[in-house]
């Protein structure tokens, strides 16, 4: 988003969009949890509830030519990147019209038209891919296109994290590394997985500019990312931001959440990024209750339409089982 262009949105418009974005993710995912209970969605389902400010704030800073890679906790990222709620829901229902043709499910959402490269469920394995995409941008004179790679703090203990940051710094590729530090990797706390818990410091050891941001404050996320993206577009090389955030729900639908106190969860819920921004904007009279309510209703309508479409969508015929193994082996195509 270019603040200098004449039709750049006003600050208030940006605030409204960010609020609406977070609400879209929240409503969509709360419905996903219900649908899991109804066994319409199966497999692993990782909810992003509580962390919406990060995907919303970052994605509003990007343009069409930028690329995004995310983890298995990526419904919000996909939605924010422009993948339709309907195609995401169809994917989770295992339908042909899903954004990955029913081959991926919740953890593997892909959309080529949105430059959305998954949906990657091997922790940290997509970081080297981000470096390669950045290298391609650099080589093919698309150096103002930024690659944005989301991952959890748990990924920072993996070798591929270190290899990728080192390569990114050596080759000065246009990649923004976005660490979503929600303090837990499944049930393993940050303190028990990282010898150095200052994650920005750790990333900075690769000679990459790195800093830490309050990931519960979408305006802060948006400000920090705007700066980082502009610097990368200007040829500044890779950057790293740690977003301090928290997931309100268990790791996945299988997780009994035995490793943290209810009090801790409650404390973080006080900082819910949606209610915080709502209260702030209402307090400053930058939004009305009616507009907020409209946002929730629009999100519910979008989600319900997606569910109806997914319910009605046909399943992929079994005789297409062997499709998409290699590009020249498109049985039935």
């Amino acid at each position, binding site marked *: 988003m270019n603040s200098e262009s004449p039709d750049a949105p006003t600050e208030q418009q940006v605030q409204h969009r960010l609020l609406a974005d977070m609400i879209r993710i929240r409503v969509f995912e709360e419905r996903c949890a219900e649908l899991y209970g109804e066994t319409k969605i199966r497999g692993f389902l990782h909810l992003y509830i509580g962390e919406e400010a990060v995907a919303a704030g970052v994605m509003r800073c990007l343009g069409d030519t930028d690329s995004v890679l995310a983890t298995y906790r990526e419904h919000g990222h996909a939605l924010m990147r422009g993948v339709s709620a309907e195609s995401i829901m169809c994917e989770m229902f295992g339908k042909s019209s899903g954004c990955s043709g029913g081959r991926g499910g919740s953890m593997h959402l892909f959309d080529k038209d949105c430059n959305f490269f998954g949906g990657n469920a*091997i922790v940290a394995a997509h970081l080297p891919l981000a470096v390669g995409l950045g*290298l391609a941008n650099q*080589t093919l004179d698309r150096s103002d296109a930024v690659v944005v790679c989301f991952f959890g703090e748990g990924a920072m203990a993996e070798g591929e994290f270190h290899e990728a940051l080192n390569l990114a710094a050596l080759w000065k590729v246009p990649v923004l590394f976005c660490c979503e530090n929600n303090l837990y990797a499944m049930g393993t706390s940050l303190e028990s997985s990282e010898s150095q818990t200052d994650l920005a410091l750790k990333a900075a050891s690769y000679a990459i500019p790195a800093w830490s941001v309050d990931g519960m404050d979408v305006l802060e996320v948006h400000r920090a990312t705007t700066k980082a993206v502009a610097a990368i577009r200007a040829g500044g090389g890779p950057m790293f931001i740690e977003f301090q955030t928290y997931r309100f729900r268990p790791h996945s639908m299988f997780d009994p959440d035995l490793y943290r106190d209810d009090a801790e969860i409650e404390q973080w819920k006080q900082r819910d990024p949606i209610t915080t921004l709502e209260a702030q904007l209402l307090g400053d009279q930058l939004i009305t209750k009616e507009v907020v309510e409209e946002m929730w209703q629009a999100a519910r309508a979008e989600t319900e339409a997606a569910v109806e479409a997914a319910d009605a969508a046909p399943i992929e015929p079994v005789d297409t089982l062997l499709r998409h193994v*290699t590009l020249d082996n498109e049985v039935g195509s």
Partner: protein
Amino acid sequence: MSATDAGNMPAMTYREAMREALREALAADDRVFIMGEDVADYGGPYAVTKGLHEEFGRDRVRNTPLSEAGFVGAGIGAALGGLRPIVEIMTVNFSLLALDQLVNTAATLHHMSGGQFNVPLVVRITTGAGRQLAAQHSHSLEGWFAHVPGLKVIAPATPEDARWMLPTALADPNPVIIFEHSVLYNESGPVGPATGPIDITKAAIRRAGTELTIVASAGMVPKALAAAEQVAKAGVSAEVIDLRSLRPLDVSTLTQSVQRTNRALVLDEGWRTGGLNAEVAATLAESCFWSLDAPIVRLAGSEVPIPYAKHLEDAAIPQVDDIVAAAINLVRPEQ
């Protein structure tokens, strides 16, 4: 290629042929680049890429740090982003550090994305024993990769194939892994001019014969040919098939051959248990059972990490004498 044409063709080593293929690929397409450990100043661990960085610059012959998972993953990303990377991994043993990227990402992205993304990546990996490099530099793990849907796996065994399989691999929209057996690099052979794109999914009959089919790949091919020459003197006519493609397997060439010769001897430098040799033997048992005059015989690597000492290393992998003995025993068990 007939033996008569071969006489007029320039001879080249396997190494030179591969370098020529790389040079041509770099010259023909700006999207192509090579990356790997010590591919530039050092000249490549097996001197395949020697001099190319001077000709094409360091961005296109790109040294990487010791980060197999990192640079293979970067190759996948670069391929997704529109480049045509050729990634070199020093030795198949080191490729295990990148197994995650190759198996979990390169092989799956096309499928997981419902056909939206594909990974036009070439990975060159040196494989095999025979240079007394012991148990962390000598294994033959091609079969592991050949196990994986979503990958194509080829093993050029002649300078001619080293020269001409690469362009087809590069043009392929899928990840293609090229296994280069280290003892082949110094082998010399005729290399003909381009005759249009060659099929990398077909096996080749390297020697015609009537009484048994010897199935070989990579470093086993010259040994199989030498053995076939020797058994001919004992009056045994052996056909030698070079698999060339390990995935997909060219089942029809294999089957047609064994249906003619009625006997099969399957060679593999890799281990016997769960090896590619087992896949070939089982495939032939399924497709040729009623044509077989004798049980299929496998001659594979001994079930041991490759030892250092020359005599032990030799004993650990099939040698020409072993192949000769197995072939004669298969065709003339009474002798």
